[in-house]
């Protein structure tokens, strides 16, 4: 008797989605899908709005990483106001934005690791769900929980100092930034009272990495074999191949590490990437045009970034990067749980970049905005914590937006997440008649590794209980469990 399992909604992720798993008469998985069931309308909302409003408007599609949308939109509008891309801004404009961005990375990665992912590692996939959550972490691993909260706070304070507010600020404006960093603010971030200073943040980032590596040493089989499948990977890289989360060129490698997208200018993204629509999800499926719909999908995010870049331009993170790359002999890493490892290396890198930026006197200068000959179209791409984020706008002669297109990182990870779900579903559900909570959690862990933001890939509100339903091949419900 065939049956269909529905996990709805998936928990401890940002946003709202569900999973369906179809089993055949022998209880083997025949199909699994991650559905994103809300609708995002921001490409429509921006039409007719004045272009300078867009960075403030589009960031409202998410409360988790609005900075990424704020900056991607601002970068697209830099092109439109004639300031050029990336290094076209004044040094203060670009570096303030970078500080905002790396502050965002720092807090987002800390949030994901400590609050969303660590419960699975600390309590196990089959751990008691009553304690397998952030409250459980706070009760049983107080030091770790406090670090998570304080690291997030530090990153949020950086965002406030650069954007004006911790959530939904207005710092980035077309052509630059609306404030610099005062010497007092700089000193607070550099030498603030313990623990809120950059040296402690770097030390704690290293501590988080050591914690993960310790866990990995004890659970190598699980970490190396959970949701492993070959994939292409895409991200921004600096022109010299360095990891750069704010600006660069588009590069993609195939599952063997061969470059399949060779350092393409961001303004040309639409020449190399297209999007497919499928009837069962509001998320679109991007793919590389040169490879086609079927095989042109790719992964973005921490795993992809470390697979694509040649090196990390900060010493502590570079050292960790070298050890990490050695695990796969320099070849692309396809192990989904290594996403956490890569994310923690980026956490450390972000802290190092923040320190370097704080020591740069350009942040106290007053030349904030640059403009030139106006253009009708602009593309802004940044690496958001979850992966490459594309913003593309056209404006008319009256300064109104006529077209907006967003490809958010979770959209790019649509196919990889579906594959990860399929991988785990097959290993967890094949041949099983009864659904256990641990089985459901394994599916969620696969999704969670991507740190997906479904509210950003579409748009979501509300709480996320979890329901799994077993349905036979004729649609009759034979078992239901609810968290």
């Amino acid at each position, binding site marked *: 008797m065939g049956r269909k399992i529905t996990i709805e909604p998936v928990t401890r992720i940002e946003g709202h989605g569900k999973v369906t798993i179809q089993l055949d008469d022998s209880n083997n998985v025949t199909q699994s899908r991650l559905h994103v069931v809300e609708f995002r309308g921001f490409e429509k909302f921006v039409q007719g709005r*004045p272009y*300078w409003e867009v*960075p*403030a408007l589009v960031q*409202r599609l998410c409360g988790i990483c609005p900075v990424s949308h704020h900056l991607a939109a601002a970068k697209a509008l830099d092109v439109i106001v004639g300031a050029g891309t990336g290094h076209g801004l004044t040094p203060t404009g670009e570096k303030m934005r970078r500080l905002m961005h790396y502050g965002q990375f720092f807090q987002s990665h800390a949030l994901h690791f400590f609050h969303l992912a660590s419960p699975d590692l600390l309590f196990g996939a089959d751990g008691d769900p009553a304690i397998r959550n952030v409250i459980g972490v706070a009760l049983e691993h107080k030091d770790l929980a406090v670090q998570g909260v304080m690291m997030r706070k530090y990153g949020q304070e950086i965002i406030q100092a650069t954007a004006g507010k911790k959530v939904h600020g*207005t710092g980035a404006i077309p052509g630059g930034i*609306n404030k610099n960093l005062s010497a007092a603010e700089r000193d607070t971030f550099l030498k603030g009272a313990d623990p809120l200073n950059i040296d402690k943040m770097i030390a704690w980032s290293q501590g988080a990495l050591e914690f993960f590596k310790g866990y990995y040493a004890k659970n190598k089989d699980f970490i190396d074999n959970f949701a492993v499948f070959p994939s292409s990977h895409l991200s921004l890289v600096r022109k010299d191949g360095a990891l750069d989360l704010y600006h660069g060129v588009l590069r993609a490698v195939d599952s063997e590490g061969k470059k399949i997208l060779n350092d393409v200018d961001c303004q040309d993204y639409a020449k190399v990437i297209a999007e497919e629509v499928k009837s069962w999800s509001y998320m679109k499926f991007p793919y590389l045009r040169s490879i086609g719909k079927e095989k042109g999908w790719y992964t973005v995010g921490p795993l992809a970034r470390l697979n694509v870049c040649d090196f990390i331009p900060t010493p502590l993170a570079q050292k960790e990067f070298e050890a990490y790359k050695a695990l796969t002999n320099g070849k692309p890493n396809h192990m989904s749980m290594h996403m956490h490892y890569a994310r923690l290396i980026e956490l450390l890198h972000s802290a190092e970049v923040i320190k370097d930026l704080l020591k740069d006197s350009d942040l106290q200068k007053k030349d904030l905005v640059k403009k030139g000959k106006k253009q009708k179209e602009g593309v802004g791409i940044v690496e958001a914590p979850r992966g490459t984020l594309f913003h593309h706008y056209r404006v008319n002669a009256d300064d109104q937006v006529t077209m907006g297109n967003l490809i958010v990182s979770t959209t790019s990870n649509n196919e990889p997440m579906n594959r990860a779900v399929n991988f785990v579903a097959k290993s967890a559900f094949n041949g099983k008649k009864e659904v256990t909570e641990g089985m459901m959690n394994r599916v969620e862990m696969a999704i969670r590794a991507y740190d997906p933001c479904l509210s950003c890939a579409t748009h979501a509100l509300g709480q996320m209980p979890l329901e799994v339903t077993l349905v036979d091949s004729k649609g009759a419900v034979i078992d239901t469990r609810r968290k």
Partner: protein
Amino acid sequence: MSDIKFTIDGKACTAKNGQTIVEAAKKSRIYIPVLCHFDGLKPAGTCRICTVKVGGRFMAACTTPVTEGMVVENDTPELQEMRKQIIEMLFVEGNHMCPMCEKSGNCELQALGYRYKMMVPRFPYLWPKRSVIADTPKIYLDRNRCVQCLRCVRDVKTSDGKNVFGVTMRGGKAIISIDKKLAAALSEEAALKAMNQCPVGCILRKEIGYKIPIGQRKFDTKPIGSELEGK
């Protein structure tokens, strides 16, 4: 002529002959909220947010001249509630999206919403369909946010005295319009003045939005009215 003596909420105040209640209250450092009123402009009395009670009757403080022995009620629960209702009505009869509006922090309507602790609108949203006017070189007119205070109609004129803004339609359909030719000829100074006297985010000088960082905007640290009350 000697000063006119009157009281506001029992406090003895004085006024010059011809001064309105709002003007005289300001001199005595008593805050009466205004929205359509703008110092230096002839009062219009369109928004009624300044409503006070005089001799048991509701009066617009911005248009009512002070008279000898006048007893004005201003800061009473009844009037505060009435003002709050007026603010709520202004919000629901337009399309006010404060979170992404570039006037946020500098908007008098928003500041009044905070002052009167508007939490949720008690009236149904009307969601009016209003178009924006963008095809002038300096001004972007977002009529979704207009509260029809008529400050722009009264204040923004060309050097030869022609009105740049006007009202078209009547009653509930009344809407602010702009003479595009005259607007195109506005000096930079006049365009900025037009934006700054608009109490909401309806009249905007193009391409300068969000230049003032959060924390340095007009009402970020000083709530509306605090300039008089010293709070």
